[in-house]
C-alpha cells in the first residue's frame, strides 16, 4: 500500500506503520517512508513524519541518518507537517539539547508567527491560535535555553509576547501561561520575565477555580526551587490549601512544602504529612509519602524524641510496603551515631524505651518491618537501660516469638536479638525454654538459630567475648582465605571426595551435554541451563565434600547451613556478588550480628571439634577460592582450545590454497607449490591470497601469544634474518614439520613485504618492525615530480597505525619534510615518535607513522592531510592527500569463550536483527562465517549446528557480539553490543560482505 498511487491507501498504510510496526521490520520500509517525505500532498508528508517519529521512539539509531530531512520537515510550508516534526525535535532535544542549539532561531520564529496569528484560522481554538502548538514550542525552548544564556537571550522577546498575548480568560490560555512560566523559570533568568511569571502564578493560586489553583500550586512547586521567597507571598493561600477538602490539592500542597522544608519548619510539615498519611489508603501514595517523611526526618530532625517518634509513625503506617532502604538507613544511623557520643546514647536509649512501651501495649498489631527494627535495637542497646534487666527484655521478645502473626523472617531477627542479650542476662529460664521450643522447630532456619544459641549458651564465657556490648559498628576480621579449612579439604580429598569444580566449569560440562538441544537463542538457553547447571552440580559437590566425613558431621552441617537469608545466596552468579548485595540490603539492617553469629559458631566449633562443622557461607567462600585457583587451569585449557582452533583453521586454509593453486595448474609437490604462491600468482589472485595471509597471520599470532615458547623464538630468529634468506629458508626447508609451521607463519608477511617492497621500494629495516602485524598494501595516494607518497594501514592490536612513506624521486635533497593531518571529528590521531625527519636524501624513502584511535562509530571517513617540504634551499611546496578509513579498520577479533559470550550477550541492551541472503557459493554456515572472519575480522567462537557465535571489538574496547543462524539460503544475523550504534554499522558491513561475495 505504501507504493500505491491512491492517496487514501497510502494514508492508511502510513497510519498502520506508525501504530503497530515491529522494530525488526523498520529497515525494510524505511526508504519507502523517506520517499514519502517529498510527497506533494501534505497529509502524506505529515503522516510520514509521524511514522518516522514512531521509529525514532522505538529504534533511535535506525533513523539517525535522516536528521537532515527532519529539518526540511520543520521548514515545511504546511503547518501540520511542521507541527509533526516538533514531536521528533522535542524528543531529540530532551536527549541532547546541545546538538540543536542552532535551531533555536527557527523555533523562536515559528512561535512568533503562531503567537502573532499568522496561521490559518482553522488552527484557532476559541480564538487562540494553535494553543497546543504553542505549548509544544514553549517546551522545546525551555529545554534549549536551560543554563545557556546566549540561547535564552534569543527567546526573551517571544516569551514576553506570549505572556502578553495570553491575557484572555480561557482555560487554554491558562495552559499556555503555565507552560510559559515553566519555560521562563527553566531558562537563564531575566528579571522582568520572572516578575511577570510570578504575577501569573499569583493569579493562578488565588483563583477560585479549583483547576487553576492546582495549576498554580504545581507551578509554585517548580518555581520554589529557584526562588523560595515566592512562597512567602503566598503563605496564606498555601495554608488554606492545606486544609482544602480536595485531597489532590492537599497532596500538591504537601509536595510544595516538601520542597521548602528546612530545620525550622520540619516539625510542622512532617506533622501535616503524617496527618495526610493516616487518611490515605492508596498504597502508592503511602510508599511515596513515607519515603519523603523519612528523608525529611533524617535530614532536619530537631531532637531525638521527635525523630524516634516520627520514625515510629513512619514504620507503623508505612509498614511492609515501604522501601527497604528506610529501616536500613534508620538502623545505620542509630548504629553509627553522630559525632557526639552522649547524644548517641540518649538517642538509642530513647529508642529502646519507646519500643518497650510500644511492646507493652496489648493487642496492637505492628508491621513486620517495624518488629524487625525493634528487635535489632533491643538486642543491641538494651544494656543502656537501668531499670529493666535483659531478662525482662528477653521475656518480651519471647512473647513476640510465640505470637502466630509474626512471620518467620521476623522470628529470626527476634532470636538474633535474644542471642545478643543472653550473655547479659543472669537467669535464663526463658532462654532455655526458647531453645527447647525452637530446636524442634520445623523451620530449618529457626532450628539452626536455636542450635547456635544452645551451643553458645553452654559456654557463657565464650559467648560474652563473642557478643560484646555495643560493637555493632566494628568490623570483624574474617579469614577470607579460609586457610584453617585446608586440612579439612585435604582430608576430604584423600578420602576420595571429588575435587570441587567451579560453577562455570560445571556449566560448561552441562552445556556440552546439552549441545544437541541448544536451539534456543542464546539469551534463553544460557539462563536456563545456567540455572539447572547451578542447582544439581552444586549439590553434588557439596555432597562429595561431605561424603568423606561421618554422618554426624553431615547432620550438623545441614544444621549450621541454615543461616538466615541463605536462600538468597544461591544464584546463578555464584556466591560473592550475592553476598555483597546481601550486605547491602540485609546487614544494613542487621549489620554485624549475623556475621558475628557466623563467626561465633565457627569459633565455638573449632574449639570443640576442629573444623568439623562448616558454616555455609564459609564453605561457599572456599568454593570461590577454589574456583579462582581452578580458573587459572581453565584459562590455560581454553588457550589450548584456541590453539587447536587456530590450527584447524589454518589447516583448512592451507588446503584451500592448495586447491587454488591446483587450479592454476602448477602442481607438483607441496613445497614447490608454496614457493610458487609468491612468485607466480597474479595480482588478482594476490588479493585473495592476501586475506588468507591475514588469517594465517592471525593464527600465527594466536600461536605466539598462547605458546610463548618455540614458535616465538623461531619467529624472532627468523625476523632477524634478511629478507632473501627467509625466502629461501621457507622454500627450501618445507619437508620438516616444524619448518612447515614456520612457513605457514611467515610467508604472508613476506609476500606482502615483497610486494610492498616492489611497489614502493621501502627500506627494509622499517618493514621488520611492522611485519609482526597485519597490514594492507601500500597505495600511492599522491605524487608530483619530486615526491610520491604512498600509505598503508597496519592493523595493530590496540590501534590502527597509518604509515605514510614519502619517496623522494628527484635527485635532490629534501629539507624538513613534514606531514600534517587535518583534525577529524571521529578520530584521535597521534603521531608516533621519530616520524619527522629533517632531511630526506635524494632517492630515498622516509616514513611517517600515526596511530589512529576511533572516538565514534561511523561507516567510512576520510582522513586527509598534507606534506610540506623544502627542496634544497629553493622553494617550499605542499602536497595534499587523503585516505579512506572504514569502520573495519578498527574492528578486531574478540577472543572469548562461549560462556563469556552468553554472559555478555545478556548484559547488552542494544540489538539489531537482520536477515541476509547468501550467495550460492557460501550457502553453508561455516563458509559464510569464514567470509565474515576474513573480511570483517570477527572471531568465530563456536559453531553449533546451524548456528554460529562470533565476537569482535571496536577499538579501543567496545565489544560486539553476533549470533548467526542459517535457514535455507538466508542467514539471520543478530548483533548485540554495549554501544548503540555499532551493531547498525556492523550489520551494514556484513550485508556488504555477504552480498558482495
Amino acid at each position, binding site marked *: 500500500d505504501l507504493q500505491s498511487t491512491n492517496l487514501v491507501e497510502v494514508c492508511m498504510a502510513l497510519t498502520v506503520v506508525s501504530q503497530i510496526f515491529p522494530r525488526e521490520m523498520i529497515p525494510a520500509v524505511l526508504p519507502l517512508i523517506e520517499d514519502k517525505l517529498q510527497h506533494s500532498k501534505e497529509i502524506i508528508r505529515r503522516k510520514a513524519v509521524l511514522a518516522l517519529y514512531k521509529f525514532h521512539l522505538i529504534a533511535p539509531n535506525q533513523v539517525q541518518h535522516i536528521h537532515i530531512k527532519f529539518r526540511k520537515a520543520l521548514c515545511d510550508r504546511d503547518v501540520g507537517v511542521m507541527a509533526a516534526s516538533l514531536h521528533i525535535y522535542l524528543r531529540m532535544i530532551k536527549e541532547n539539547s546541545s546538538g540543536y542549539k542552532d535551531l533555536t532561531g527557527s523555533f523562536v520564529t515559528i512561535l512568533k508567527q503562531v503567537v502573532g496569528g499568522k496561521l490559518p484560522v482553522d488552527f484557532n481554538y476559541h480564538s487562540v491560535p494553535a494553543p*497546543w502548538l504553542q505549548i509544544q514550542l514553549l517546551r522545546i525552548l525551555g529545554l534549549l535555553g536551560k543554563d545557556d544564556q546566549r540561547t535564552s537571550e534569543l527567546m526573551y522577546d517571544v516569551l514576553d509576547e506570549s505572556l502578553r498575548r495570553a491575557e484572555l480568560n480561557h482555560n487554554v490560555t491558562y*495552559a499556555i501561561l503555565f507552560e510559559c512560566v515553566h519555560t521562563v523559570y527553566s531558562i537563564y533568568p531575566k528579571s522582568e520575565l520572572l516578575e511577570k511569571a510570578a504575577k501569573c502564578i499569583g493569579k493562578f493560586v488565588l483563583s477560585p477555580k479549583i483547576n*487553576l489553583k492546582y495549576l498554580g500550586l504545581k507551578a509554585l512547586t517548580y518555581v520554589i526551587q529557584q526562588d523560595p521567597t515566592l512562597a512567602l507571598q503566598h503563605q496564606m493561600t498555601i495554608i488554606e490549601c492545606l486544609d482544602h477538602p480536595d485531597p489532590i490539592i492537599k497532596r500538591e500542597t504537601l509536595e510544595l512544602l516538601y520542597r521548602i522544608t528546612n530545620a525550622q519548619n520540619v516539625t510542622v510539615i512532617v506533622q501535616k504529612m503524617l496527618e495526610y498519611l493516616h487518611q490515605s489508603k492508596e498504597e502508592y501514595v503511602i510508599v511515596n509519602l513515607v519515603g519523603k517523611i523519612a528523608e525529611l526526618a533524617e535530614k532536619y530532625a530537631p531532637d531525638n524524641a521527635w525523630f524516634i517518634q516520627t520514625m515510629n509513625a513512619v514504620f507503623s503506617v508505612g509498614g511492609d510496603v515501604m522501601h527497604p532502604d528506610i529501616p536500613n538507613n534508620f538502623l545505620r544511623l542509630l548504629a553509627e551515631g553522630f559525632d557526639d557520643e552522649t547524644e548517641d546514647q540518649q538517642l538509642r536509649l530513647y529508642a529502646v524505651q519507646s519500643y518497650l512501651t510500644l511492646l507493652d501495649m496489648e493487642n496492637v498489631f505492628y508491621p513486620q518491618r517495624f518488629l524487625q527494627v525493634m528487635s535489632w535495637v533491643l538486642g543491641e542497646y538494651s544494656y543502656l537501660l537501668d531499670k529493666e534487666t535483659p531478662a525482662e527484655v528477653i521475656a518480651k521478645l519471647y512473647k513476640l516469638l510465640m505470637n502466630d502473626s509474626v512471620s518467620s523472617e521476623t522470628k529470626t531477627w527476634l532470636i538474633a536479638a535474644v542471642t545478643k542479650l543472653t550473655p547479659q542476662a543472669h537467669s535464663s529460664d526463658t532462654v532455655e525454654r526458647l531453645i527447647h521450643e525452637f530446636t524442634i522447630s520445623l523451620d530449618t532456619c529457626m532450628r539452626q538459630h536455636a542450635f547456635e544459641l544452645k551451643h553458645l549458651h553452654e559456654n557463657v564465657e565464650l559467648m560474652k567475648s563473642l557478643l560484646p556490648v555495643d560493637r555493632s559498628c566494628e568490623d570483624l576480621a574474617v579469614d577470607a582465605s579460609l586457610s584453617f579449612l585446608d586440612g579439612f579439604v585435604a582430608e576430604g580429598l584423600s578420602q576420595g571426595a571429588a575435587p570441587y569444580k567451579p560453577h562455570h566449569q560445571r556449566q560448561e560440562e552441562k552445556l556440552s551435554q546439552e549441545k544437541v538441544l541448544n536451539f534456543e537463542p542464546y539469551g534463553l538457553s544460557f539462563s536456563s541451563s545456567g540455572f539447572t547447571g547451578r542447582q544439581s552440580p552444586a549439590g553434588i559437590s557439596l555432597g562429595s565434600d561431605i561424603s568423606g566425613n561421618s554422618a554426624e558431621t553431615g547432620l550438623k552441617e545441614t544444621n549450621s547451613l541454615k543461616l538466615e537469608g541463605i536462600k538468597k545466596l544461591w544464584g546463578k552468579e555464584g556466591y560473592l556478588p550475592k553476598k555483597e548485595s546481601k550486605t547491602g540490603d540485609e546487614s544494613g539492617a542487621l549489620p554485624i550480628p549475623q556475621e558475628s553469629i557466623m563467626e561465633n559458631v565457627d569459633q565455638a566449633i573449632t574449639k570443640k571439634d576442629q573444623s568439623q562443622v562448616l558454616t555455609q557461607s564459609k564453605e561457599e567462600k572456599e568454593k570461590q577460592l577454589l574456583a579462582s585457583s581452578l580458573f587459572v587451569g581453565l584459562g590455560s585449557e581454553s588457550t589450548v582450545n584456541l590453539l587447536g582452533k587456530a590450527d584447524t583453521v589454518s589447516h583448512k586454509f592451507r588446503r584451500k590454497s592448495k586447491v587454488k593453486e591446483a587450479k592454476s595448474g602448477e602442481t607438483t609437490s607441496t613445497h614447490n607449490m608454496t614457493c610458487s604462491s609468491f612468485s607466480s600468482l597474479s595480482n588478482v589472485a594476490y588479493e585473495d591470497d592476501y586475506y588468507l595471509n591475514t588469517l594465517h597471520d592471525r593464527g600465527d599470532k594466536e600461536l605466539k601469544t598462547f605458546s610463548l615458547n618455540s614458535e616465538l623464538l623461531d619467529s624472532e630468529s627468523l625476523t632477524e634474518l634478511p629478507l632473501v634468506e627467509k625466502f629461501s629458508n621457507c622454500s627450501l626447508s618445507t619437508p620438516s614439520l616444524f619448518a612447515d609451521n614456520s612457513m605457514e607463519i611467515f610467508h604472508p608477511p613476506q609476500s606482502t613485504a615483497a610486494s610492498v617492497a616492489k611497489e614502493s621500494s621501502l627500506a627494509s629495516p622499517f618493514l621488520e618492525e611492522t611485519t609482526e602485524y597485519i597490514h594492507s598494501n601500500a597505495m600511492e595516494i599522491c605524487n608530483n615530480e619530486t615526491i610520491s607518497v604512498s600509505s598503508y594501514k597496519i592493523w595493530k592490536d590496540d590501534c590502527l597505525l597509518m604509515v605514510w612513506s614519502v619517496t623522494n624521486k628527484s635527485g635532490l635533497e629534501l629539507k624538513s619534510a613534514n606531514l600534517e593531518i587535518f583534525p577529524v571529528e571521529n578520530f584521535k590521531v597521534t603521531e608516533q615518535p621519530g616520524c619527522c625527519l629533517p632531511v630526506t636524501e635524494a632517492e630515498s624513502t622516509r616514513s611517517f607513522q600515526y596511530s589512529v584511535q576511533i572516538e565514534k562509530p561511523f561507516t567510512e571517513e576520510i582522513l586527509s592531510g598534507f606534506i610540506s617540504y623544502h627542496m634544497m634551499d629553493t622553494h617550499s611546496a605542499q602536497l595534499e592527500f587523503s585516505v579512506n578509513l572504514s569502520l573495519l579498520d578498527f574492528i578486531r577479533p574478540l577472543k572469548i569463550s562461549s560462556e563469556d559470550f552468553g554472559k555478555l550477550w545478556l548484559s547488552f541492551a542494544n540489538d539489531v536483527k537482520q536477515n541476509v541472503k547468501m550467495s550460492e557459493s557460501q550457502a553453508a554456515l561455516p563458509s559464510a562465517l569464514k567470509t565474515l572472519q576474513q573480511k570483517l575480522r570477527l572471531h568465530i567462537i563456536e559453531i553449533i549446528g546451524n548456528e554460529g557465535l562470533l565476537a569482535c571489538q571496536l577499538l579501543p574496547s567496545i565489544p560486539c557480539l553476533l549470533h548467526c543462524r542459517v535457514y535455507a539460503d538466508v542467514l539471520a544475523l543478530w548483533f548485540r553490543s554495549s554501544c548503540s550504534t555499532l551493531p547498525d554499522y556492523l550489520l551494514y558491513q556484513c550485508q556488504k560482505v555477504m552480498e558482495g561475495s
Partner: protein
Amino acid sequence: MIKFFLMVNKQGQTRLSKYYEHVDINKRTLLETEVIKSCLSRSNEQCSFIEYKDFKLIYRQYAALFIVVGVNDTENEMAIYEFIHNFVEVLDEYFSRVSELDVSFFNTVFHGTWQAHSSPYQVLVLALEDDPTSV
C-alpha cells in the same frame, strides 16, 4: 505523554478506549474500573486532575459520559483538559449533537480518526481538516 484515552459512562461501561502504551487486556479492565471509580468519587468542587499510581488522570464529564485521559507527569494538565473539550467539540460537529449512542455505534469511525502517536495536538489538527474522518 498521553498513556491512554478512555470514554466511560457512569455505569462503568467503557465506550471507547485507546492505549498508547502496551497494557495487558486483563489489566485494562481492572484499570478502567479503578479509573472510573476514582472519577465518580469526586464532586464538582474538586479539581479535574487526579493522581493515580505513577501517572495523572485528567477527566471531564459530559452528561453521563466521562472522558478520562491518563498522562505522565511531564504533561500540562490544563492543556489536556482543554484538549478533551476540543475533541468533544469536534465530535459534536461531526455527528451534529453527539450523544453516547453515537460513540458506541460508530466505533470504527473513531478508530479511523485516531492518530498513531501519543500526542493530542495532532489529533486536533487532523480533526480540523475535513477529509480524513471519512475513512
